[in-house]
């Protein structure tokens, strides 16, 4: 069977599974819609959290990015896993004991203030929409490459599927589809990784293959990769090329940001007990770690494979995948020395980095671009995303493995999109409507509102997918930076300090938010030409500035709360209560 048919079969089968689960798990109360009734088993919640957390970026882009960053790619590996330690120890058990529906719920009640609640709602919606745009783009790319439908049609199909299970099933539907999606995505990630690991190193465990010798050669994989890269003029794969302080801050911002992401936090509201919330964070990280320890292995395998297959190969004898991806626009070749052979070297091949294709073809049949060529010897532009997507093709794996990767990438994108949509809709129907603007509505009306806002949010997300705002890639730093600078400190102080009051929390959140936002906006939008280490504050890039924002938040909060009145006695009792798992009265 050809790849196309196989992909259709696997994708349709996985989608039917998701819809079947949605029908089986329809939500009928607000409790079920927001937090799945609080009855989710900790292992199931761990899987759902893992699928919720691992997005199109983790599945499609991360290994590719690391593949080109080498050692410095560890900021993503540590940054996107270390946050779970913070979640497990500083947030999850206490928020579970608090036992309400949303993140702004906690901030609103703990700081006895609807302003605090609204600031939290604002941060939450901003963070979540930033994130969703990327997921929808991922769905579109996968559809267009593997199923050869138009990107827009792909986005609309994806919206339809999410619509069915998010609007119908709420958190309950999302949770159980996420469990299924985790299984699909991890299987789809591991199978090609295992195959490639065996091909290159003979070791079926990619994590070990990463540190093994290459089949038939007496040299370790990483050593060979270092040699090959330095011969071509690149940095060695295992060497770092960024400033330590920047690496430190980016890692910290991603960790703290992860722990402050509302769609992740809210998953811990869905388990029955405090001890389940703790265990669930552990399961989640275990399930995530399976992919995250495989990713760097895949990165090194695919970089080596890529160089082997492409460098010094005549364009006309490149494998089929090379020209397929060129047709989609993710690869481009500029034959600078006109020898018909592809040279892969450091630096960007084209001015303005991304190729702008013309409709013409060159002497060897390659697509021509209108970009100026750079003066270096590199002739090839590669979009990092294809390292995972094309990996099975590069390694010449069977067709069903390629089809599986498509289904896995879709599962990763859809599960994250659904989780984000749910927190957006519950922030609107619960925090904005029920708790702030229309406190008199009944539970039934609130549930209807939740469904309507989920539907609208899907529509908006779809528009982002079809007309991707040019700034999407630029604002990912925003999502983590803002979560680190606003939500995380407010929750932590709400639990660990009895003295923190509403004035402190609100001024802190706003200060952290404004500082971080201004820094990122300045370097990414106002003066992008200044965006280099010489101009950065203490040498910290916009990606890592969230940590400083967090410190600003903590400092402002502590100063302002110490100057103003202590919180009322009920709030102190609330804090006492969430610190103990059980009633503690017997």
């Amino acid at each position, binding site marked *: 069977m050809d790849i196309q048919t196989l992909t259709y079969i696997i994708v349709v089968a996985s989608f039917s599974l998701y819809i079947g689960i949605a029908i089986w798990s329809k939500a009928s109360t607000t409790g079920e819609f927001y937090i799945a009734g609080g009855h989710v088993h900790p292992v199931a919640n761990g899987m759902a959290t893992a699928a919720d957390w691992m997005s199109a970026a983790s599945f499609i882009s991360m290994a590719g990015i*690391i593949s080109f960053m080498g*050692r410095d*790619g*560890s900021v993503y*590996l*540590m940054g996107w*896993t*270390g946050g*779970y*330690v*913070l979640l*497990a*120890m*500083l947030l999850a*058990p206490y928020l579970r004991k608090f036992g309400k529906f949303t993140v702004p719920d906690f901030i609103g009640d703990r700081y006895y203030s609807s302003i605090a609640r609204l600031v939290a709602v604002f941060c939450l919606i901003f963070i979540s929409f930033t994130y969703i745009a990327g997921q929808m783009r991922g769905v579109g790319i996968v559809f267009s490459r593997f199923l050869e439908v138009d990107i827009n049609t792909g986005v609309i199909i994806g919206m339809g599927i999410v619509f069915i299970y998010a609007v119908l099933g709420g958190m309950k539907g999302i949770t159980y589809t996420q469990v299924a999606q985790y299984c699909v995505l991890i299987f789809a990630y591991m199978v090609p990784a295992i195959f490639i690991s065996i091909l290159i190193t003979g070791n079926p465990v990619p*994590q*070990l293959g*990463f*540190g*093994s*010798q290459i089949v038939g050669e007496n040299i*370790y*994989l*990483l*050593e060979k990769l270092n040699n090959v890269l330095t011969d071509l003029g690149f940095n060695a794969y*295992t060497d*770092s090329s960024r400033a*330590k302080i920047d*690496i*430190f801050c980016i*890692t*910290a911002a991603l*960790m703290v940001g992860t722990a402050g992401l509302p769609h992740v936090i809210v998953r811990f509201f869905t388990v029955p*007990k*405090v*001890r389940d919330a*703790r*265990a669930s*964070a*552990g399961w989640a*990280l*275990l399930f995530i*770690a399976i992919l*995250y*320890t495989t990713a*760097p292995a895949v990165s090194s395998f695919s970089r080596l494979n890529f160089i082997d297959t492409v460098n010094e190969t005549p364009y006309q004898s490149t494998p089929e995948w090379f020209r397929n991806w060129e047709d989609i626009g993710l690869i481009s070749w500029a034959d600078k020395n006109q020898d018909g052979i592809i040279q892969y070297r450091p630096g960007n091949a084209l001015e303005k980095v991304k190729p702008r294709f013309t409709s013409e073809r060159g002497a060897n049949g390659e697509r021509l671009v209108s970009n100026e060529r750079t003066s270096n010897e590199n002739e090839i532009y590669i979009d990092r995303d294809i390292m995972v997507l094309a990996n099975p093709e590069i390694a010449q794996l069977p067709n069903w493995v390629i089809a599986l990767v498509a289904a896995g990438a879709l599962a990763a994108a859809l599960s994250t999109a659904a989780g984000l949509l749910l927190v957006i809709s519950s922030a609107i129907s619960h925090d904005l409507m029920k708790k702030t603007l229309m406190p008199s509505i009944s539970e039934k009306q609130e549930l209807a509102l939740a469904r309507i806002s989920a539907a609208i949010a899907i529509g908006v997300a779809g528009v982002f997918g079809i007309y991707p705002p040019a700034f999407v890639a630029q604002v990912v730093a925003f999502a983590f930076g803002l979560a680190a600078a606003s939500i995380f400190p407010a929750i932590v102080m709400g639990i660990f300090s009895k003295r923190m009051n509403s004035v402190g929390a609100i001024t802190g959140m706003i200060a952290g938010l404004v500082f971080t936002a201004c820094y990122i906006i300045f370097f990414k939008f106002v003066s992008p030409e200044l965006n280099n280490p010489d101009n950065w504050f203490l040498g910290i890039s916009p990606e890592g500035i969230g940590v400083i924002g967090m410190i600003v938040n903590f400092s402002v909060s502590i100063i302002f709360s110490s100057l103003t009145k202590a919180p009322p006695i009920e709030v102190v009792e609330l804090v*006492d209560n969430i*610190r*103990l*798992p*059980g*009633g*503690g*009265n*017997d």
Partner: protein
Amino acid sequence: MDKEKNKNLYWKLNLTIVGSLLAIWFMVSFGAGILFSENLDQFEIAGFKLGFWFAQQGSIIIFVFLIALYCFLMNKLDKRFNVEEE
């Protein structure tokens, strides 16, 4: 009064557990994976330079164990102070 004292002691022990585990968390990721990473590179296990291994694999594996240890210690503490949920 005793109950109040007990509660305070429980919270203090909770903070001690969290504090010590987070210290390890910091040492393996920011310490071994970033700050002292290059110094550790002189040691090699299999094909890995040690600092590189901490940065790309080791820290993640240790994070998982840290949460497992946290669950174990906290469950024991809950039992000792009789603050488990019914």
